[in-house]
């Protein structure tokens, strides 16, 4: 899929045909992406899809084997320091020094940058003021993650790369992080967020890139994705015997069924309008319809449609 140029928008990141091999494994496969100023882009995919590798290419930790990456008009090859001064990063499973206090941690990270927000303001902005003197080893998972976010945000970066920021957190802590990310977004920060939580992508992202086996298989806003891939609604049917084959022969729109726990799903743009036709056909064919229902498609359904695999099973 090629990156659509963003018209009238300030592009802060442009990736073109990024490819990365680990041995013979193509971990990132010709990825093309753009990130607009103030936009939140979620890279969604199951474990092993290549999200972290892609994110690490963006962060300059891993260099691509081919393709081009431009961040704020700079390239890592010749302007690494310039890029690093303008991006903020939280990595997956990073343990900051557990014997540092929150304030000491933020002071340490602030010292790496030519300019940074006042620590007090940072503590206030990220709701860390009350725990500023506590050591990281004494904090909950959610509080630690807030400190990680604060350490990435302390120098007021233009772009934030958040690699699975809510991984391993309980639902309450996850919601707190979502609120925080929303606040950062409201401050005008551009954010690239990798996640395997559908709800997280749906809530936070302006656009979603669905990554599967290193390749972007879908890119756009939620509505755009549903429309582009014809996954607005789906018709789920439970039938007996060979009725399914007969129905498929009779109705051309019943194609590419996906087996579900109860029966079969067909993704359709106009599923609700097709129910009546299917019910009538079943009656004409002598019954055998156990149930029929129309449901709003979710991001998970979209993933299922695009990859042929259930997202939940992969995570």
């Amino acid at each position, binding site marked *: 899929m090629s990156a659509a140029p963003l018209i009238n928008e300030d592009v802060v990141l442009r990736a073109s045909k990024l490819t990365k091999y680990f041995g013979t494994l193509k971990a990132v496969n010709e990825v093309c992406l753009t990130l607009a100023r103030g936009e939140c882009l979620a890279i969604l995919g199951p474990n092993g899809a290549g999200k972290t590798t892609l994110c690490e290419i963006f962060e300059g930790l891993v260099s691509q084997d081919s393709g081009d990456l431009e961040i704020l008009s700079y390239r890592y090859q010749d302007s690494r320091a310039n890029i690093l001064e303008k991006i903020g990063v939280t990595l997956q499973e990073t*343990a900051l*020094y557990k014997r*540092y206090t929150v304030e000491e941690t933020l002071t*340490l990270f602030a010292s790496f940058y030519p300019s940074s927000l006042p620590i007090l303001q940072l503590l206030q902005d990220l709701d860390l003021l009350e725990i500023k003197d506590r050591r990281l080893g004494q904090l909950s998972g959610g509080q630690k993650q807030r400190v990680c976010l604060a350490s990435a945000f302390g120098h007021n970066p233009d772009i934030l790369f958040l690699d699975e920021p809510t991984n391993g957190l309980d639902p309450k802590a996850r919601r707190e992080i979502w609120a925080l990310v929303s606040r950062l977004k409201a401050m005008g920060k551009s954010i690239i967020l990798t996640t395997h939580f559908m709800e997280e992508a749906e809530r936070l992202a302006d656009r979603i890139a669905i990554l599967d086996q290193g390749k972007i298989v879908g890119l756009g806003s939620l509505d755009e994705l549903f429309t582009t891939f014809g996954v607005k609604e789906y018709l789920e049917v439970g039938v007996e015997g060979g009725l399914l084959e007969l129905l498929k022969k009779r109705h051309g729109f019943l194609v590419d069924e996906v087996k579900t726990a109860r029966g079969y799903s067909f993704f359709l743009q106009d599923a609700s309008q097709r129910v009546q036709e299917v019910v009538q056909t079943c009656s004409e064919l002598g019954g055998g319809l156990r149930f029929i229902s129309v449901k709003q498609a979710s991001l998970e359904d979209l993933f299922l449609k695009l990859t042929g695999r259930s997202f939940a099973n992969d995570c």
Partner: protein
Amino acid sequence: MIVKSLMEMTKGRVREFFREPSACIFVLTMPLLWMLILGFCVNEPQERALHIGVIQNEIKATTNLLKALSDPRFVVKEASYQDHLAAYAKGDLDVLIKDSNDAKGFELFYDANRAQAVDAAKYLRLVITSSLSSGQIIFASHQVTSQKARYIDFLVPGLLGLSLFTTSIYGTGMTIVVNRRENLLKRYRVTPMRPWVYILSHILGRLLLMALEFVCILGAGKLLFGFSSVGSLWDVYFFSLLASASFAALAILCGARLANAATYNGAVNLLCVPMMLVSGVWFSKAHLPLWLASLTDFLPLSAATTGLRKIAVEGVAFFSLGSEILVLGCYLVVAMALSAKIFRWS
């Protein structure tokens, strides 16, 4: 920005140390424990050959004397009085002996406060009397007044060297390995902090903590055993700085690529434990086979303990320590250069 980040990182190194109880205990108690055990219990190494220094006589040949000393319990070295005196101060010799110029007899030089030296002198008299049975032999005894002939005076600089070595290797190196395993190095890599700032902060942190080890070990030596340095304490301090920097660089090199603490420990033990045993920390290298003793001169721990003893025991000035400074300097430069080449951030 570089100065600020270097300061913060170095401050962090010191903070990590003081907030890690096991590190504090390891650094401060281990050398003291060694000092107490060896200082009070061992006192002198037992059942070893007696090291006799035959002083070259410009007037009389020492042939007869050397013949008399062909006893298997003696290790005999012939040198000038001044050279022997320096070796005696280091604890390498037990008794010095010289043919008298004007009488049929010998002059013995030893520290009457050292049991080993007194025993050696007695035995020496017996052996010479029985082997040169041509009339009465007169022995004139002289006290060698060097306080440094005590084992504890030999031990304290060795323990200081050992402490600087172990805290670097097991402290600094392990910190790097753990930081890598926990992705913290990777996190630093995505900031504009220069990589060498991280490396240098470890060395500076070590130098600051070294002051604490320095005070603890020399202070305990003074309080418990009356140890004092013959050479300038500043010289001991500056040489300790060089040794610490060199050890820290080696520790960084050891931890340059590994991400597994157990592997690091195993690898470091394999390298360092033999080095500790042959570097003259606890006992003089004079008791090693000559070829091994010569080889150990190139080991960093050996260079450190030798240098520290030269200052503290023999009173040699810092800048007169040519080979020890050269060896430690080489390790510092080479280890830093190699680390910069092979260091892995993830």
